[in-house]
């Protein structure tokens, strides 16, 4: 294997952040610099593998040299490459922000955990093995909990504890599902399990267990109770990472299961999750409107936006890969916009010492870049043009009207309006002069530029919608069965 092709191996996506994490752990100083360098390297690697994907099509790597049923396969197709790109971009923004955000003492704990979280997410997006997904899922969960608890305040610890219990419950339920599938098909590789004949009742039970496990981790409506506490009490970059990336991981695996492992999925499940998604959109938005603190508002906005991904599931049966494309577009737009919003809210908190929305007036006048970041991110969250959120919303609206599915169209529109209410509740105080409260502390430049760049990314995604959608379907991720033509 020539040098270059060795380097461009997507396996490095797992190894580089891991090595980086160990180095940062052992280093005595300059952790932030090394951390940001590693994340930048990760972005370069993702870009390389995307280029390679474009040329030679999907990439498979059986670890350990053994075939699928025996060994574990890593697989890179359009969908996983897109998710890797999303993770790389957002984590670069978050790392740049964290370099300036954390004090030396806190940085000591942050960087090793953060780089391990990145390793876990990269490993998860590359893996097609159900049990391996369990291990990576656990890695992501524990890293996220550790990062949340790292801050040490009272409500951060309680929230982290609740988050840990939920994520462990989810993992256990997921693992039991995997056990059932393994014993009835003799393999844990997604595609092989999908193709193997499974008795209907076993498939139903396995799907139920795995789906509940993943929904617990994705915080869909009835299981969203742990999210606001965890996402708002964690430190700004961590809550940005949680809301933008960690929550999407559960949905990604559910999507893979939906397509590869359970092709015989009936429309009843789609409707059930669709209803839960709709309720999540409305309930999350209502709660977000009622919040008094900026970070809680943004956290509940995550609960609402997650609902959109599930709301669109009933359209998938007839809509096919176009609807999946729209959902993934929404996932990416939300990741960029939400990370920007949380970091901007973090700036507000750092600047004024509090994030009570009513008293934000005076604060935001003096941070134009943060205000711009909040504004642009809000545009994407509301689904107003020209943002990525708008493109996704337009495609979903189009699909729902084509299939005559009026309830979904109405919830999509109502969600947009409710989002406008709570985004402008936050933005309103940017343009009004209020009474000064205490002496604000200046915020570092990179802490203002990082959210702005991510917010601009969310807007630019709107213009790149078509290229993203074309890139997404390389290797037909939305069609069951493995493509062996690479």
């Amino acid at each position, binding site marked *: 294997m020539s040098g270059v092709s060795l380097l461009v191996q997507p396996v490095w996506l797992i190894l580089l952040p891991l090595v980086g994490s160990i180095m940062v752990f052992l280093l005595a100083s300059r952790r932030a610099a090394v951390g940001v360098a590693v994340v930048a390297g990760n972005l370069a690697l993702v870009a390389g593998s995307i280029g390679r994907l474009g040329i030679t099509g999907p990439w498979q790597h059986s670890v350990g040299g053994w075939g699928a049923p025996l060994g574990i396969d890593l697989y890179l197709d359009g969908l996983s490459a897109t998710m890797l790109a999303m993770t790389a971009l957002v984590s670069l923004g978050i790392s740049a922000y964290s370099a300036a955000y954390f004090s030396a003492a806190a940085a000591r704990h942050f960087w090793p955990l953060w780089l391990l979280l990145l390793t876990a997410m990269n490993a998860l997006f590359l893996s097609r093995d159900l049990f391996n997904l369990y291990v990576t899922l656990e890695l992501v969960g524990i890293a996220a909990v550790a990062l949340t608890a790292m801050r040490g305040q009272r409500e951060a610890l309680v929230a982290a504890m609740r988050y840990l219990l939920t994520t462990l419950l989810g993992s256990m339920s997921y693992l039991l599902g995997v056990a059932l599938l393994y014993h009835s098909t003799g393999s844990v590789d997604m595609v092989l399990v999908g193709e193997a004949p499974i008795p209907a009742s076993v498939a139903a039970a396995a799907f139920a267990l795995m789906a509940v496990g993943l929904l617990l981790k994705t915080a869909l409506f009835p299981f969203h109770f742990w999210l606001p506490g965890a996402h708002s009490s964690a430190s700004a970059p961590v809550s940005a990472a949680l809301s933008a990336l960690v929550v999407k991981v559960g949905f990604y695996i559910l999507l893979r299961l939906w397509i590869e492992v359970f092709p015989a999925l009936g429309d009843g499940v789609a409707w059930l999750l669709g209803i839960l998604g709709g309720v999540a959109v409305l309930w999350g938005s209502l709660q977000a409107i009622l919040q008094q603190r900026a970070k809680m508002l943004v956290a509940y906005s995550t609960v609402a936006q997650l609902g959109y991904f599930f709301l669109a599931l009933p359209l998938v049966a007839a809509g096919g890969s176009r609807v999946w494309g729209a959902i993934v577009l929404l996932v990416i737009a939300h990741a960029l916009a939400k990370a920007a919003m949380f970091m901007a809210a973090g700036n507000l908190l750092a600047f004024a010492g509090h994030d009570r929305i009513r008293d934000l007036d005076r604060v935001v006048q003096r941070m134009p870049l943060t205000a711009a970041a909040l504004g642009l991110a809000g545009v994407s969250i509301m689904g107003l043009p020209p943002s990525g959120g708008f493109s996704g919303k337009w495609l979903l609206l189009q699909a729902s*009207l084509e299939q005559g599915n009026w309830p979904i169209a109405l919830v999509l529109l109502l969600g947009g309006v409710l989002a406008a209410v709570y985004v402008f509740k936050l933005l309103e105080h940017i343009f009004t002069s209020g009474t000064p409260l205490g002496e604000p502390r200046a915020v570092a430049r990179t802490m203002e530029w990082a959210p702005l760049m991510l917010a601009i990314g969310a807007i630019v995604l709107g*213009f790149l919608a078509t290229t993203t959608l074309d890139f997404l379907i390389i290797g037909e991720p939305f069609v069951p069965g493995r493509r062996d033509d690479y």
Partner: protein
Amino acid sequence: MIISPAFSSTLPLALVASSLLPGLIIFALAEESVRLRTALNLLGALSKLLLVALMLWGVYHDAAFETRFELLPGLPLILRADALSLLFITLSAQLWFLTTIYAVGYLEESPHRSRFFGFFSLCVTATVGVAMAGNLLTFILFYEMLTLSTYPLVVHRGTPVARRAGEAYLLYTVLGGVLLLLGAVWLYTLTGTLEFRPQGIVSDLDVGDHKALIIIFVLLMGGLGVKAALLPLHGWLPKAMVAPAPVSALLHAVAVVKAGAFGIVRVVYDIFGIQFAATLGVMMPLAWLASATIIYGSVRALFQDDLKRRLAYSTVSQVSYIALGVALVGPIASVGGLVHLVHQGLMKITLFFCAGNLAETLGIHRISEMNGVARRMPWTMAAFTVASLGMIGVPPVAGFISKWYLGLGAMEVGADWVLLVLAGSSALNALYFLPILYRAWFLEPEGDWPQERHYPRAETSLALLIPPVITASLALAAGLLASVPFSPQEWAKLVVVREFLDP
């Protein structure tokens, strides 16, 4: 007239960039660099005027200017300069240039000017984008951008009153946006394309869809009606008067309101097609709604003591002339509606400039304080008088031309009741404009002015005085020299010929 394809495809982009780039740079400028900011603003305005002139000449000779960019699968972003869009662009380009000068003078030492002029340029970019949109998707994109960039200007003062006005403004425009989006997507599922074409794109749909088309028409009109201040959706306009004068002058009298009216014209002409819309039977209700708005606006304006609120209600009624012109399915009425789009812009911006002058120089906000103001500020009041007479429809000011064509169009279509509406509205206009003139010219001022400011060379700073005088004379010229080629009336005729007659 040969224009190289490369050049003709980049011109629309250049036009949008001519206000977008200065805007973005101004955002980054420090508050103190006044000269650089003004220079950037004026440079942007002048380059836009130049580009518009070039395009006017090109389109007059049937050249095509179009830029396409793939936004969504099957739905490109199209910027196209055709006759109809240039009518609106010329108006906004000229008035942006004048309003920039006015705004520089008006916001002499007030805070947040970089932020103000940044959003100001974004608004004009959005207006030009709305005008040049080649399909409904691009139209919605710039339409929403207009909402987003005007909101900060409405709440620029930062007072709680401004914030509440901003809330009302958002409430209406966001709901309008949702209606527009639903209508557009539903239309797309029926027709498969949203591109504007002279005879519309829905005429070949089968009869089964007609009921859906009517609902879509209502949705689109609801979305556009918010900004065009049609009757039930006009509530935000009077409240938005809390914004500084240049904002209410350019935006709420010209850019934002006209975007809605322009949208109605686009949808009726290039989506439904005027004949097909008539057969659908949606034109008569629109005409009734427009007439009701005309009368309602004027009646409400009668009893506003605050000058800017009276002008705002007058805008509510005047913009519906355009909708009325379009709803009367006839070429002459359309000419009347289209030409009013320009005339009303010229006249109304003069009135708002003068209102701004009175507020800025003498601290007058209410009509009851305007006794004998003409003695102190003759030139401003002269411009105000010309514009008011124009609004009433007295020749030779431009307002007469549009009312003449609307009257004729109504007669041509046989809708005689429209003549009554026009007459009634003119009478009401007289009833609420003439007392102001009477009070300004013929009554003695009681005591001194609330916050008087003296200026060396003229009654007020030149930057505040020159724009209204220019726009007043433009309004007079548009009326007096109506039949000069490239005049608003001739250009409106050209548009109607291209929209109506050739297939």
